[in-house]
């Protein structure tokens, strides 16, 4: 899957978790840009992404994730 495709799919997940259909993600988007991106929503995001892509993150992977770009690279590495 192309990274662009992954981004689109991740964007759909973000829109549903944050209940915001106008949310536009870039690789630079981080928790600073989305005030609701807290530990609770992060946990929900992670489990939604895991099931959408049929992958499983390790805690070490999560720790490396600083923004959406990191998340996409990580997903790509697991596919």
């Amino acid at each position: 899957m192309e990274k662009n495709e992954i981004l689109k799919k991740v964007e759909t997940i973000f829109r549903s978790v944050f209940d915001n259909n106008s949310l536009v993600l870039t690789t630079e988007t981080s928790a600073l840009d989305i005030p609701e991106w807290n530990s609770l929503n992060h946990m929900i995001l992670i489990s939604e992404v895991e099931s959408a892509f049929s992958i499983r993150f390790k805690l070490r992977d999560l720790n490396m994730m600083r923004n959406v770009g990191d998340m996409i690279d990580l997903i790509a590495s697991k596919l």
Partner: protein
Amino acid sequence: MFEEYILNPFLNAVKQFGNRNAFCIDGKFHTYNEFAGYVSTIQHALSLKKAGNGNIGIVVNDDIETYASIWAVWLQGYAYVPLHPIQPIERSQEIIQQAEITIVIDSSSQSKITGTDIILSSELEIISDLITVVETSPDSLAYILFTSGSTGKPKGVMISRKNVGAFMRSFWQTGFKVSEEDRCLQSFDLTFDVSVQSFIVPLTRGACTYTIPHDQIKYSYVYGLLEDHKLTFGAMAPSMIRYLRPYFNEIEAPSLRYNILTAEASPLDLVDEWANCIPNADIYDFYGPTEATIYCTYQKYNRGKDNKQLNGMLSIGKAMPGVEAIIIDDDGKPLPANQKGELCVSGDQLTPGYWNNPEKNKSSFFETIHNGKTERFYKTGDSCYFDDDGDIMLSGRLDHQVKIQGFRIELGEIEYHAREYFKGRNAVAMATGNNVGNTILILVIEGKESNTDGILSYLKTKLPPYMIPSGFRFIEQFPLNASSKVDRIKIKSLLNL
């Protein structure tokens, strides 16, 4: 006491351990010498201004200038009032107005604060590392923390220098041994008082403080710090540990020597599992309202043995040295063991009161004769009892205060703003558990279901992120109880919350 337990040990640490690391912030290390440079520079800038009542606002970013500002304020004889950059600016301005703040120190490149003198701390040129101590009375304030208020406005808890000194003296008396070799976690927002313990302990011992950047997800970042930097000391909220639970089999942190669980009740089953991830740590549960300065009761967790619990939550143990705890009935009379009542605490850690709030000061504190002496007590609002050994068992709240990630929240404050928005429609806020067992907020609105975008964005301009409801529900007409009040219990069961 503030000099003896906080300022002097810090100055000694600077002198003795100048080349050792004082901070690791966002992966970057800063030595004690560097830190002292920031402190003295900000102190100098502060000394050139007229500080009014001595309450200095600090915009609490996660950077070296912010921590240096706190120490500069203390060394200059003033008190700090933290203003969180993520909370709505309206709330910060409300706090500035209430505390009559005339100077704000902000490390942001551009400050969002208006109407006060601003010191942009990151633009100051480092001048020297000469720190001076401006003498002041022990009754002068060290900080004011604004917590949620049920009337719709945050209320300020004043903590004096004597309070913080008494706390640190008591904390060391409980037996912790921390040295310049330690690496200590600071995982709490600076608007929350456990942060004060989390940076004073290392900085008065020459140890290094590791902080959490605001753009990071706390639980995974803390794991990274434990793993990469082999932390040895850290206070954590159980709700953060709960997020780590699905990954416990990946976590092994033998370097951790001390782990303090605090800010909310500790579930025994969680602690039992967590203890395996930190095999060498002494685990403690510490309890305390902001009004009694950080912590006031504690107990050590017994590894592999029975631990006292009530409804699955660890006992909060006994009062710390210098603190007295009693449990009273509705008439204010002390209760014997095994009878439930309100926990009240006294001692040198007790706040002088709420800032400019005579009503609340009258209702929250009282004097009584205890052990032959007249003592002033604070009513915690926590329902507790002593067991036969004198250990305190915590059973819940007597009012509508809830804790989200350790933050105290008055449901009434959320409801106040919701009613303001709806102008006439009633709304109640409720706390409920999410799928991992952490507490979340739901706002229940009376009337027909309608779009919630408007109320959501309104609340975001009034309340900090941790007070924003995670969901909205509707009930055509609220059920009432026998005394014609909205029946919260019924609503909860109607909605399966």
